[in-house]
């Protein structure tokens, strides 16, 4: 009996020792696991910081040589090693603005259609189809733009704009140009098609977060659908809608391939939207592998740095605006 119980005690002690040893092992394994995933998290942080720093480093020669003048010079002379960023900056901003002018109202219309107007059987397929647009690689947009859209712009749209808007005061200069088809306006339109799915899907999602109670109260007071959307839905989701617009703007600013195809790669500052131009991303894509001097390559990397800083700010604003709505949701 006594021998028996001591055997039991011994095996229990062994089990306890075993268990505590396992605890130690588990704790160590947990520690390692935690360390691994935290390191991966830090890597994401490092990737972003590294991107910024590496471009600042790569562009140091250009920034050092040209100083602030780099931002305001229109010169782009590979032979004499004189580089200025104004033409690509101008092209990037103008094409992105044209894109937003078209894409924002259209995206709003699509979101309105998909949340309030369309019969429910139509909503799923249409929103899926619009989102497919977002999945098409940008090089396909570029090819379509170059081979299909550019001829149409050159043959019909540009002459029409020349004839009808070309001699208007003030804006006339914007719409006077040779019927090339390539140029800022074409690039802006292609960009608009590309960012519409991004903006409209954000708008659609946030429109769906508006409490039904609010909308129904307005309907009960006799509002029309449009009045409910304009006076209830839009004010409620305002910050997120702006966030979605900025998200689209960030995309439009950084889009490379589609713009490279249809913008014309011309380092010239012109008032007309129908003239070929250049954008930051297109300049880098076109010229990087041909850059034959240190300062040339450095200038291109410096351009990349400028693009990164601008898109970072735009996207950060977008994120903050989008977050505001979800926080508002959370406090209810």
């Amino acid at each position, binding site marked *: 009996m006594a021998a028996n119980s001591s055997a039991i005690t011994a095996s229990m002690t062994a089990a306890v020792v075993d268990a505590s040893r396992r605890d130690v092992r588990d*704790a160590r394994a*947990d520690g*390692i*696991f*935690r360390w691994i*995933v935290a390191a*991966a*998290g*830090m*890597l*994401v942080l490092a*990737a*972003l910081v*590294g*991107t910024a720093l*590496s*471009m600042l480093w*790569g562009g140091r020669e250009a920034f050092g040589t040209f100083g602030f003048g780099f931002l305001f010079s229109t010169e782009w002379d590979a032979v004499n090693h004189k580089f200025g960023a104004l033409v690509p900056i101008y092209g990037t901003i103008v094409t992105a603005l044209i894109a937003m002018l078209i894409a924002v109202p*259209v995206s709003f*219309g*699509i979101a*309105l*259609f*998909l949340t309030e*107007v369309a019969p429910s059987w139509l909503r799923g397929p*249409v929103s*899926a*189809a*619009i989102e497919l*647009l977002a*999945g*098409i*690689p*940008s*090089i*396909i*947009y570029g*090819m*379509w733009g170059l*081979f299909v859209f550019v001829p149409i712009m050159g043959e019909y749209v540009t002459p029409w704009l020349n004839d009808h808007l070309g001699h208007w005061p003030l804006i006339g200069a914007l719409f006077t140009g040779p019927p090339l088809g390539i140029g800022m306006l074409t690039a802006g339109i292609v960009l608009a098609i590309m960012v*519409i799915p991004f903006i409209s899907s954000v708008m659609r999602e946030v429109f769906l977060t508006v409490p039904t109670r609010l909308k129904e109260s307005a309907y009960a007071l006799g509002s*029309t659908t*449009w*009045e409910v959307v304009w006076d209830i839905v839009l004010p409620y989701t305002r910050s997120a809608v702006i966030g979605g617009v900025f*998200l689209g703007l960030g*995309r439009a600013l*950084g889009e*490379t*391939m589609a713009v490279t195809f249809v913008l014309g790669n011309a380092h010239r500052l012109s008032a007309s939207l129908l003239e070929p131009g250049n954008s930051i*991303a297109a300049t*880098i*894509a076109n010229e*990087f592998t041909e850059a034959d001097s240190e300062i040339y390559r450095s200038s291109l*990397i410096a351009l*990349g740095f400028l*693009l*990164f800083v601008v898109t*970072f700010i735009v*996207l*950060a604003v977008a994120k903050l605006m989008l977050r505001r709505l979800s926080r508002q949701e959370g406090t209810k």
Partner: protein
Amino acid sequence: MSAVADRLYRRRSVVNAFNLVASGLCAAFGLFWLVWILWTTFRHGIAAMKPGLFTQMTPPPGSEGGLANALFGSLVMSVAAIVIGTPIGVAAGTYLAEFAKKKAIGETIRFLNDILLSAPSIVLGLFIYTLVVAPSGHFSGWAGALTLAMIVIPVVVRTTDEMLQLVPSTMREAALSLGIPQWKVTLQVLYRSALPGIVTGILLALARISGETAPLLFTALNNQYWSHDMNAPMASMPVVIFQYAMSPYESWQSLAWAGAFVVTVFVLLLSILSRAILLRNKVSHD
């Protein structure tokens, strides 16, 4: 009085009807471009399809050839990017969802990851150029794969983070209360539950990188010949399409259309597949 009210009411209905019709037109406008672009790609692409496309090398201007080396290069670099990017992305997503949920560091990483997700890809190419290509002195398939991995990571981080947050915390607590260590809970309970979502994220990332052109232009460059050396410049579908589409030679342009068709079909299939996985999973959860 009632005439005024009547007129006001009529104006409001007209405004309403006008705007609702306009919204329908906007949707039609969006679909119009989709149909037009796909139709163009399919029409030119199918016309340019030919038997040698997948077996012959990219030709010099004027002669016949295929896209075999470009397809192979894209395949190798994409697989390498997924293999590099997925573990890092999943681990970082796990950190965000399981270890840093309400902490400032977690919020910061999540915020920056979202920015990385929409950051211009050409900028990521410049990063890898300064980090890998410039020090090593030559363009390489590895540099291309690393650039693509930089695009894969934020997508996978985002989906992993979201999917893990959807796993009910009762499941975590039940597993932990059995005395299972946390790493085992994560690997064997949480990942299993979040698997369809994570797989969807990987598929979406693959769809994104298979059409990615800009950053490959100055990391992997291009290669006219068959090469399986990841330390040498490597051809890829998008870069070849770009080069051939911009060329004045008709045979090259037709190859570019064929390539564009192949890439588009692949990307569309991927996005439909990932949608189907998500949908099936949602149905089984309900």
